[in-house]
């Protein structure tokens, strides 16, 4: 099984998975504690519109995905405090419109789009070297943003009204948080695809939350869990194809491993401290 490490494609896959885990653990923590998983789901599906536009006009689909998620994030962030009653519906619209645009753009593209499935469900085994650096750069932006605005993000996640009373620019901070979430989503599209990204943003962080009482340790643990599931999923996919000739995509395997881990963690938590059981989300 370890001979897989000698293949450059596997090395790149491993590097991408580990780098994406950082964005996943850090931003996933906010997604879970601020309860913005439906917004994040909308953003990741909006990314597909950008993927399609990239195919059609002939530029990098990942670049298109970045533009579309950032734009959708800015739009949702603007509407968040202005549309209290219709916001949920708006998320669904962004979600569906992103997918619809993606499918239309791909249909307009002459010829056959061979790796469309890879953007829907992830294709970490076929990551080009340039994308590894791209993911590393996005990680850097996410980490810098969270480093400098940690207290502010904590405040708007914990008690938005008080944060506003305290004089914070709550609307702007939420916009920045959504922008960082958009970038994290782009890094994860390579690993899990637009449809499964939301699972990676929520499940490791929800598991980490069961064992931590502060945001920073929660971020670290979520990153470790996400890295562990990604690496295990990659090896599992390699091993199944090597021994049983079963060609399974690694993205869904990674997510099923993460869910299994969440189940084991929840059970352990119930036994460990029956006095006070924390919910996952």
């Amino acid at each position, binding site marked *: 099984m370890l001979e897989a490490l000698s293949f450059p494609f596997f090395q790149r896959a491993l590097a991408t998975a580990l780098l994406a885990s950082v964005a996943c653990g850090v931003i996933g923590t906010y997604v879970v*504690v601020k*309860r913005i998983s439906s917004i994040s789901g909308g953003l990741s599906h909006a990314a597909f519109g950008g993927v399609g536009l990239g195919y059609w006009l002939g530029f990098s689909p990942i670049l298109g995905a970045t533009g579309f998620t950032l734009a959708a994030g800015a739009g949702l962030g603007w509407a968040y405090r202005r549309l209290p009653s219709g916001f949920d519906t708006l998320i669904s619209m962004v979600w569906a419109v992103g997918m619809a645009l993606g499918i239309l753009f791909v249909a307009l593209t002459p010829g056959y789009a061979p790796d469309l499935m890879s953007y829907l469900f992830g294709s970490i085994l076929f990551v080009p070297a340039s994308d590894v650096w791209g993911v590393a750069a996005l990680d850097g932006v996410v980490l810098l943003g969270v480093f*400098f*605005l*940690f*207290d*502010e993000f*904590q*405040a708007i*996640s*914990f*008690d938005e*009204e*008080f*944060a*506003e*009373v*305290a*004089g*914070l*620019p709550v609307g702007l901070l939420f916009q920045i948080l959504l922008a960082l979430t958009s970038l994290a989503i782009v890094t994860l599209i390579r690993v899990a695809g637009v449809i499964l990204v939301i699972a990676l943003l929520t499940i490791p962080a929800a598991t980490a*939350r069961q064992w*931590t*009482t*502060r*945001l920073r*340790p*929660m971020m670290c643990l979520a990153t470790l869990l996400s890295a562990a599931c990604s690496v295990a999923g990659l090896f599992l996919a390699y091993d199944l194809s090597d021994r049983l000739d079963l060609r399974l995509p690694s993205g869904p395997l990674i997510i099923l491993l993460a869910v299994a881990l969440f189940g084991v963690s929840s059970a352990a938590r119930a036994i460990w401290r029956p006095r*006070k059981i*924390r*919910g996952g989300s």
Partner: protein
Amino acid sequence: MMNGLALDIRDVSLTLRREPVLEQIHLQLKQGEFLGLIGPNGGGKSLLLKLILGLIEPDTGQLRVFGRSPKEVRGTIGYVPQHARFDMDFPISALDVVLMGLLGKKRLFRRFGGKAKRQALMALERVHLGHLADRQIGELSGGERQRVLIARALCLDAPLLLLDEPTSSLDPQNATEVYKLLADLTPQRTILLVSHDVGIVCGYIHSIACLNRRLVYHPSNQMTQELLELGYGFPVEVVEHPHHCRILEPHSRESAS
């Protein structure tokens, strides 16, 4: 500051969804005054606090806090909300919650320094929770959590404190402690306290106001039957308790008639 008024509210009205919720509110608070604000649920008490905090804008009238608009003084007023609407499982320590009170003074992109942390710890010690600073917020009892929120409002050392039923989840003994603490903060600070504990509160406040869409102000701490009836808008009974008195509202007489 010029006229010595901490709070100057003139002719303020507010309509929500075509429903008048506050009508022609006049209220002047001198610096150092401790005002108790009572009134029925839905009478507009929390809305009045939100107007003062600049979270909502009045339709008409003028609000001045130390001679400036609510938006200008944002971040310098201490505030304890009525219900802690936050998630009890949020991974945050009591000390970090108190530190939130200092966010207005911290510059963006900077981290809290040792001085801010000492200030927050002192605020926690004032409400006798210094030993629980490292606890996760959900591991505290309801009363302790409420005191953490009071410490969060205190640590800013704000000249004006707004408290929206800060003692609703405390037992009478703890509630009395909080009132004593607040009374000690005057006359350096001005306090506006929303409360249902009319009986206990009377011993500590300087003046009382009753808000039921309209505001009736009484410049002493003597609760009168007349004031209660004006404020509540219908006859009320006052029942003496061993510790404190409570207001009994008749069963929605207005809607029945």
